[in-house]
């Protein structure tokens, strides 16, 4: 394939106009030069490409997932992708020229509003890369806000998020500590936590605030917010998380949708793009990127973050998803996810699995399988096209359900487990 429309004739004319004889005259300065063709594969036509990619994709196996742990397999209404694939959304860039990109800005404003409504916070940005690095950004924000350099993490944070946090902390000379004191920049709690537990975290917020630290709530499965108390109501200063559940495929891990919402006193510290409503020269309403003085292209080394490209298209996807689902649809998703998870947990309990959650849970839970059986069970499930969960150590398994895990799937899950035993 060749996506350049320049013909040989055009090329001749253009070179002549430039005043050179060949393209080589234009690239003489680009050194050291490569003298041979790069050892890449033979160019493919579109037809060959389709064949090639189909073959590769078929080496992947798509299962009935009972696994979450940071990526959730929810139903995505068809209209989401149809709208998202419009070239107007897909092929523009950051709306630096607001008058020409009101579409992206309008949707960003709606996205910010949705995130605020769901989290109970005052201000949201227009997205960050994904949940774990968004959490790291929240930590950097806290440290920059109060000048402190210690981080306290309540147990139950997704282990991959913890890994990412450690990496960022190493870079930024921050320490992860085991107690809250007057060096603590922030206290982090994931809700629901990695094991699915849900809690009212008011008491954690109070502990944090008493020490003068900020309280960060991390939400990795945001459909939970349809039924759970918004973190803004139990004292969160920052809510960050992963928006993938809202209309974004699991995509083998990305692109996803990091979000961040803060209380208004942190407005000038928040990283990333923010869209605001304003008026034009005739008094009509319109949208622009605002508070850009926080950002790297203006403030350089004094910026609140280095983030530039975010995941605008994923924010648009989630906005369209939320609009299509509406209050009613989102609550149904949450209820179905909740009820399927509890159904499966009950059934597994009845066949000898031990429930390990000591607190209420939403759509994820962990259990201990009868000793020595977990590996065989998981592999038998896999053979039958079911991904039974995430195997943890010591016969423990983390299981997740969404509205896509039907009652029939749950019954097959159970019968395969029973056959194994």
């Amino acid at each position: 394939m060749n996506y350049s429309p320049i013909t040989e004739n055009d090329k001749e004319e253009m070179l002549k106009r430039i005043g050179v004889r060949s393209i080589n005259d234009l690239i003489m300065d680009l050194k050291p030069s490569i003298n041979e063709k790069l050892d890449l594969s033979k160019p493919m036509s579109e037809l060959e490409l389709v064949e090639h990619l189909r073959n590769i994709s078929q080496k992947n196996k798509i299962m009935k997932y009972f696994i979450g742990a940071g990526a959730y397999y929810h139903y995505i209404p068809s209209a989401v992708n149809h709208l998202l694939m419009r070239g107007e959304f897909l092929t523009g860039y950051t709306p630096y020229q607001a008058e020409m990109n009101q579409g992206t800005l309008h949707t960003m404003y709606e996205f910010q509003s949705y995130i605020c409504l769901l989290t109970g916070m005052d201000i949201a940005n227009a997205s960050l890369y994904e949940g774990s690095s968004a959490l790291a950004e929240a930590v950097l924000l806290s440290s920059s806000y109060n000048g402190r350099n210690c981080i306290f993490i309540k147990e139950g944070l997704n282990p991959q998020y913890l890994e990412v946090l450690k990496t960022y902390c190493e870079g930024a000379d921050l320490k992860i500590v085991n107690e809250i004191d007057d060096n603590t920049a922030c206290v982090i709690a994931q809700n629901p936590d990695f094991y699915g537990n849900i809690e009212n975290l008011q008491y954690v917020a109070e502990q944090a605030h008493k020490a003068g630290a900020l309280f960060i709530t991390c939400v990795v499965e945001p459909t939970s917010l349809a039924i759970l108390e918004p973190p803004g109501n139990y004292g969160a200063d920052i809510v960050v998380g992963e928006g993938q559940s809202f209309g974004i495929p699991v995509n083998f891990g990305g692109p996803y949708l990091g979000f961040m919402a803060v209380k208004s006193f942190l407005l000038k510290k928040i990283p990333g793009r923010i869209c605001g409503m304003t008026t034009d020269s005739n008094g009509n309403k319109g949208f622009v990127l605002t508070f850009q003085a926080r950002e790297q292209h203006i403030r350089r080394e004094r910026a609140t973050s280095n983030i530039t490209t975010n995941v605008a298209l994923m924010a648009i996807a989630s906005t369209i998803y939320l609009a299509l689902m509406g209050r009613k649809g989102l609550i149904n998703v949450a209820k179905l996810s909740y009820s399927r998870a509890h159904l499966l947990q009950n059934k597994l309990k009845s066949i000898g699995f031990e429930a390990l959650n000591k607190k209420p849970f939403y759509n994820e839970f962990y259990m201990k399988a009868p000793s020595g059986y977990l590996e065989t069970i998981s592999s038998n499930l896999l053979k039958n096209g079911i991904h039974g969960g995430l195997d943890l150590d010591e016969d423990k398994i983390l299981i997740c359900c969404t509205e896509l895990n039907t009652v029939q799937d749950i019954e097959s899950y159970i019968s395969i487990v029973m056959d194994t035993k």
Partner: protein
Amino acid sequence: MKLIFEYEEEITEQVPDVDDNKEIELGGKAAAEDITIELPQNLMRKKLPLPNVSEITVVRHYTNISRMNFGVDLGFYPLGSCTMKYNPKINEDMASLDGFKNLHPLAHESCFQGSLQLMWELEQDLKKITGMDAFSLQPAAGAQGELLGVMIAKAYFKQKNEKRKKIIIPDSAHGSNAATAAMCKFETITIPSDSRGNMDIYKFKEVLEDDVALVMLTNPNTLGLFEENILEISDLAHIKGTLMYCDGANMNALFGITRPSDQGFDMIHLNLHKSFSTPHGGGGPGAGVVGVKSFLAEYLPLPRILKEHDSKFVLDYTKQKSIGKVRYSYGNCGMVVRAYCYIKSYGTNIRKVSEHAILNANYLLTLLKDDYELPYSRRCTHEFVLSSRKFGEKSALNIAKRLLDYGFHPPTIYFPLIVREALMIEPTETESKETLDRFAAALKNIVNEIKENPDFVKGAPYTKLVGRLDEVAAARKPNLRWTSLSQSNGKENSEKKLYGEKSVRNSSND
């Protein structure tokens, strides 16, 4: 256009209804499965203030909103430094194949051999294109790639027990370079550019001491000029033990022509959404993959993808000197599939991409250089920067806004910071001669308009749905979200008084 929150309550049925009449009252029975939601009241939300709108309304709403946008699919988008090339449609289809789109990142290793093969092969191709020895596909965008690079430098010198606290950056650099250095607590030293647009080599030598960890260069730089002293800079840096980092935002100029590793760079990030055609999506997602020389490979994030001798692919989590992880999972795999398709489409002909990008930029430069000022009198690579300073203060802004009326997206303006009234123009290889001619004609025409009636140009744009927007007011009276004034009394759907100017201030009292 109204907001989605401003429509009347409508019917919406996207998923099976579990509880016919009590959708707002939570805690009732989920009829289908006879399970009660039994959560303590203090865990439960009292209400969810989201609108219910029917599918037809949503489709029309976002279709009409999209029509207020501009993208490469609609016209010329010469936004300098962003490489707004055509995004092949087939690549969207390929990334949406069930096997890619619906693959869970924590699935069992036997489930994702295809994706690992694709990612591994992409790494091999990127190694050939850049000359680097190892790649990580993890970073989500260029700035995260930079962050990874700076973290690697920090870990590398920590391992060697060397205290290096400085990073050298030229004044033409992207702002993200300096911001990244600051995130890792490095001090930045900014080097001015010389009269040919290179980093001033004399100033560079003055500050290059053995406490410098990294030199971060964009090559070709943001002026669209190839760094003429690159080999000398790399040699000098390496003599001091300093690492060379390439901001690969401008890789679109170099495919098959020259390799960053041969220029002496030890690390590079590539923006798959720029050089490798994955769509920009209104501001992302991108992918900022990072390549390094072999002596830095052990510092790359985990997991790494390994190919075993039986052609099986595995994820290697062996912690050597790795800096850890910079994000959940393995990267923006959806974007990785698209970039893979792009490279496979061009294959051995990939040099043509850069040749045409350079041809187009030089052609457009030739057409425009007499009407505007060319601050550095050199041939450009894939982009170039003009100055409109002879037309006065704010002329770049006014010209940009007037270009909207001609149906073009404006160039990047006021960047790089070292050129006054800068217009940074990157046509890319996917534009035709005819388009370039039309664009040049528009810019020439605007020059005439400025001469004849400068106030007219200052009032642009005239043909968009909105006129020039007031950015100052947006920051002074922030209105950053919709709020329903009636939320507090539970009638969020009946009353629709919106856009409280005081929305932010009000809610701060919560």
